Every structure is written in C-alpha cells, then in structure tokens.
C-alpha cells in the first residue's frame, strides 16, 4: 500500500477542516491507516490555515514532511503558493482559481502575485498544477463555501475509491440538510477533474 500525503491550504473559515475530515474518512474506507493535523483558534480568524492528511500502511507523524506531499490542495491561490517547499517532482497541486486578498494587498501595501507567477513557483520543482473554478462550481451547486468538496471531487479520480464510497463518506460527515448539495458539488468536481 503506497503512502499518500496531502496538504490543504486555505483561509480560516473556508472549510479546510471539513474537507480534511472527508479525505481522512475516504482513506479509512479504502483500508489505509490515516492521520490528520489541523489548526484551530486564533489562526481561524481569517488567517492562513493548513491541514495535513496522511494515508499509508502505517502512519506515524500527523505532519507531512517538506518535499514529500503528493497532493497540494489550495483553497485559495496564494495560500497554495505558501507550501511550495512541501512539493517534489511527482507532486500534483489542485488549486481553486480564487483570490482572497490579504490585508496588506487591500491596503495597497503589497501585490497579489499573478496566476502565472504562482504556477511557475509551484511547478519549479517539477510538479504539476491543475487549476479549478471550484468556488464558482460550488456556488452553482448551492454555496461557494463548498469549494473544498469540489476540489476533493477532482482529486478523487486520482487517489482511488469509487464514486459511491466518496458520496457515502460525505453523507456521514456533513449535516443532513447539506448532504445533497455537497454530493452535487463533489460530482461537479469529479467530472471537471477528468476533463
């Protein structure tokens, strides 16, 4: 059983914790040992947040090591860019084409890097970058806050587990009244990911 390490990066309040739980749940269903690490508290007030999810035969550390992430999941463009040191030539980054300008940018004191610059940075180690209109798709499915679930849909094509397995995990982890919406968002991502 080959290990798979995931790193999720976003802005506090974007739903990284729910997405990391779905990803962990899917790994468990597939028979992996799974560990995750999250950040709570002060970091959630609109600051940068990251979640680590690790699948493997036997996982020790909940934290992913530099240069060893297999997948980077970016909920926001520059948040993805921050984690470049975790990538290697085989890494794939799924990134939501979505900008949340940080305070320094809205104040005009810093510049938000361009999409090309971010892609160049993340590919500089040889990895691959996949852009997704995840927020837009999530909004179409009912709520932009489900962008993470859209990205998981795209990712799911690569990491195993049939469609039903993923949909069941979502059903188990999402509050009942939001299940349909989240499953729809997941399927939109899954379709987009094969394109």
């Amino acid at each position: 059983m080959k290990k798979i390490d995931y790193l999720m990066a976003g802005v506090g309040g974007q739903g990284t914790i729910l997405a990391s739980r779905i990803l962990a749940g899917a790994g468990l269903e597939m028979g992996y040992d799974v560990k995750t690490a999250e950040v709570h508290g002060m970091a959630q007030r609109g600051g940068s947040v990251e979640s680590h999810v690790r699948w493997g035969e036997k996982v020790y550390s909940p934290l992913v090591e530099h240069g060893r992430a297999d997948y980077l999941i970016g909920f926001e463009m520059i948040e993805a860019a921050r984690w470049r040191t975790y990538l290697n030539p085989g890494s794939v980054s799924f990134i939501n084409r979505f900008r949340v300008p940080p305070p320094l940018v809205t104040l005009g004191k810093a510049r938000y890097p361009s999409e090309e610059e971010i892609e160049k940075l993340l590919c500089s180690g040889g990895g691959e970058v996949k852009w997704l209109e995840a927020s837009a798709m999530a909004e179409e499915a009912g709520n932009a806050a489900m962008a993470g679930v859209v990205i998981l849909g795209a990712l799911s094509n690569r990491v195993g587990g049939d469609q039903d397995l993923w949909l069941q995990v979502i059903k188990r982890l999402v509050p009942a009244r939001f299940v349909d919406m989240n499953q729809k968002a997941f399927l939109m991502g899954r379709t987009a990911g094969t394109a």
Partner: protein
Amino acid sequence: MTGNEALAYGAYLSGVRVGAAYPGTPSTQIMEKFASLPGVYAEWAPNEKTAMDVGIGAAFAGTRALVSTKHVGLNVAADSLFYAVYTGMNAGLLIACADDPGMHSSQNEQDSRNYAKFAKVPMLEPSDSEEAKQFAAVALEMSETFDMPVIVRFVTRISHSSSLVEVDPAAAPPPPKERSPYKREIAKFVMVPGNARRRHPVVEERIRKLREYAETTPLNRIEPGDDRLGIVASGAVYQYAREVFPEATFLRLGMVYPLPEKLIREFAGRVKKILVIEELDPFFEEHIRLLGIPVIGKEVFPLVGEFSPTLIRQACVKAGLIPAAASESSPAPSLDVPVRPPTLCPGCGHRGMFVVLKEAGVTVMGDIGCYTLGAASPLEALHFCGCMGASIGVAHGMDKGGVTDRCVAVIGDSTLFHSGLHPLINSLYNQGTTTTIIADNGTTGMTGHQHHPGTGHTLQRQPTVKVDLERMVRGMGFDKVDVCDPNEMDAFRGILEDHLKSGKASVIIARRPCALQSKERRTPPRIDPDLCTNCGTCLDIGCSPLIQLEECVSINEVMCTGCGLCVQVCPVGAIQQEAK
C-alpha cells in the same frame, strides 16, 4: 478521533462523571466532547482555578472527575493543583493539560512537564489518539492507587490531530459503583501548617513509589531496533522521530514524570549513542545527564518552537547524524507571497472600539481574546497583552506609576469573568482613575463561542441565570457606568471622552454581539465612485471587504455585514447606506 475527543471518550468509559474547564486552544474540545456524552455533568467554569477546585471537590465526594485546560490555564489553576497533591482525594482526578509549542494560539510556549516536577505529581503523555483514550484510564487508576491527581499532557499536534481509535460499540462506563463515601478527615483535608507538615512526607514517599511504578509500567518501553542509535522521545515527537529514524532503537516514554532510572540505564547499555528529541525544555535531557549518561540533545535541536519530521531531519543532517538527502528540492524562483495574519471579522464591534480609541490617542492595556487583534496593522490600537485578566491591573499600575498618557483597560466579557473582576474591584478600592472598557460580544469568541456566566446558558445547553454586567459593576460600587454599541462611533466617542475627563475609576460596556453569531445583517453600503477620492481613510479601519482599486475603493458585498462603520469614517461622504 482527535486526541481531545479520544481523551474525553476514554475518561467517560473509565467512569468519569464530572468535568470542568475553561475554554482555551488547543484544549477546548476535550470538555465539549465530554459534555456531549450521556449521563455526565460538565461545566464551563469562569476560569481554570475554579474548574480545578470543582474537579477536586467532585473527587472528594467520591466521583471520578476530569479537568481540562491549556498550558497557561494550569498557571491559573496551579494553587489548587498544589494543595490537591497534599490532600489527595477520594476518587480519581484526571487533569488534561494541552501545551502549544509553536504558539498557534497562545501567548507563550511554556513546557508543562515542569509542573509535574514542581507540584510532585505524575504526568503521562500520549503519542496519538488511541493512547489518549487508554492513558485516560491509566491516569484514573493511578490517581486512585496513589491518592493524588494525575496530569495527562497534550501538545497541539495531539489535541488537534486525528488518528484511529478502537471503539467497542458495546463499551460503556462502569455502572456507578458504590462510591467510597465522603468522610470528614480534618488532618488530611485541612491544609493548615500542622497538618500540611504531616502530609509533605506522604507526598515524597508517593513520588518514590511512583519512580518504581515508572520502571515497570508498559507506558515506558524500549522498542528494539538498530543499536547504533538510541532515541529517547515521547508524545507527538516520538511519531516525528519514527518517520526520520524508522530503524533506530527507541526509549518511548509514555510517563514523562517521574522518570524510570533503571530503564534509562538499561537503554543506555544497549545502544552506542543516545539522542534525546524533545520539544521546548531539555526535561529528559537534564534528568538523563544527571544520571551520568552522555546524550545528544539541545546542542542539535532548538529550545523554541514546534518540532516536525522536517525540523528533526534538517537538524540531524546539520549535525552530521544523518546524510543529506540526495536531491534537495531545487531553488525556487523568488516570489513575495504576502502574509495573511488573522484579523477582526467584518461587522465586529471591536473594530469600532479601536477606531475610536486610536483617534482619541489613548494608551490601551489589552487582554486575551479576539480583541487582541486590535494590535495588528492597520489599527495598531492596543499596546499591551500579557495574560488573561492582566489589562485592568496593569492600567491601574500605569496610573499609579505616573504615566502621563491617557490610559484605558480593554477586556472581553468572558475574560472579565475569568480573572478581570478582582483587578476591577482593585481599581475602584484603591482610588484609581482607570476607565475599563468591557468589550462585550456576549460570548467567548476566539475559542469558538462557548457559553460563560453572562450568556444565560450552561455548557450542556441548560438555561440559567445571566449575570448582568451593568448591575454587577454597579453592585461593586462603580457609579460611572455606561453601555454603548462601539460601532455607533459618535456616541461611543462622547462617552469615552466623558469617562476620561471624570478622573475616576469607571466602566464602559462596549456591547455588540459577535458578528459571527449575530443574525443581523444590513444591506452593504455603496461607494459613489464620483465622490470617492481613494484617500484610503476607510482602509485604515482594517475591514477585509474594503478593497482599494485603481480609481476608488470597492466593497466585497459577500463578506460585508453592512455594519456601517466605514460610512462613519469616510471624510467625503462617498460611502452611503440606506437608513436602518
């Protein structure tokens, strides 16, 4: 399960029936999880010391109890911890204490292992969620066998990491056993000097017995491997070290105080070289060196910050303990990625308060909570934050020390109940002139909206008495008290000036419900591009929906709550909002 959830579950399965805590990252979810389990009583106490006394009292009564806290909360509860070590209890008391190396959400990164030695109380440290569950049971057994509290230490990466936990669907807490009935024992429970003198030898004898226990408990064990390198580690760091040194021989310490001397000597005899890997203080290292055993420790690993497999690998490569990886990742093109610090939410009442305080040019002694973010750019309107409840005492001391600035204290409602009441009374009693502003958002915001004595509900969602802040401070004797929504800037400004001029100790309750909890949303204001001069005044309030474009400022209508603060600061009236 997260480590927090697993510990609560383990405590529950071991028959713990009473839990008490004050919320604090990363420990908060321990008590939240415990409170959700059937048949238990759990409470948010106003502070950790009170929680500790409640836990001790429950254990006096013969009921197993759980007290959870973040590391700095143990400072607040320390006085009670120390007496409980002398008195012992009448049932198990489990204290879960979560450290925060790396300070993800804390004011310091103290190493709580020192408390175990200081208070003479045993400490266990799990390295994943399954162990968190199991160690809860072990700790409670130990607590009853040795008649004292037992601390289980977490770090953030145990509290907020998830890993597999064995759950037996048939498992349930033992039926409420016949409690050992509470007995009045003055010599054991009344810690006046005469009695305490007789208890201290009991404490020392207990630690001696615990040292023997540490030698044989399966919590401490040698994991054999390549004997050229032996690694001493515990908790989350054990897991990181396993990633970096999969082949080494390990001394894995599940009980971090007191330490097993014979086992350490045996381990030292089996390996050629010992590496002690521990976050924060050289706690194991100093102990092992005192045994005359040479080790490699803090000369290789840092004293500060959070460890990770990456950090351990890099430190060991640098020290020549392992070879550098064949292909380090290629140098990246340089790209300045702007930082994203946490900020006050759109619609937050703390923002209006800080805008007015900044404009008034007052020095602000702050406290711990979301409002600490008032120190961040661009507001930069908070000038001190030390620990829970420090604001008012420090402001009073500044006053007595002769500061010539106009100076106020700012403290949140939950923090006031935690440890602000005594300094507030002090400012009045000792004829101070401090104006205390209670930033009252009606909840414990930063840790995720927990109830407190002013919310009208308990942790287990029971309606209860709601302590009225205004009546409370008037009852203390304050006669200058005003209540105001701080985002109504003109009104708040007027009250502030009036209080500052009064020359007496006074209270302003700056009341506005937390924007994340409030249902009230108004239509976002519009910016008239013809009037906007793009001067940036509105940007200085640091509200994230306001974005500066080439020609004028614009408002992100999805994020905006329509609070209208920016309307009030615009010098040219370009930001317009429909009347309420």
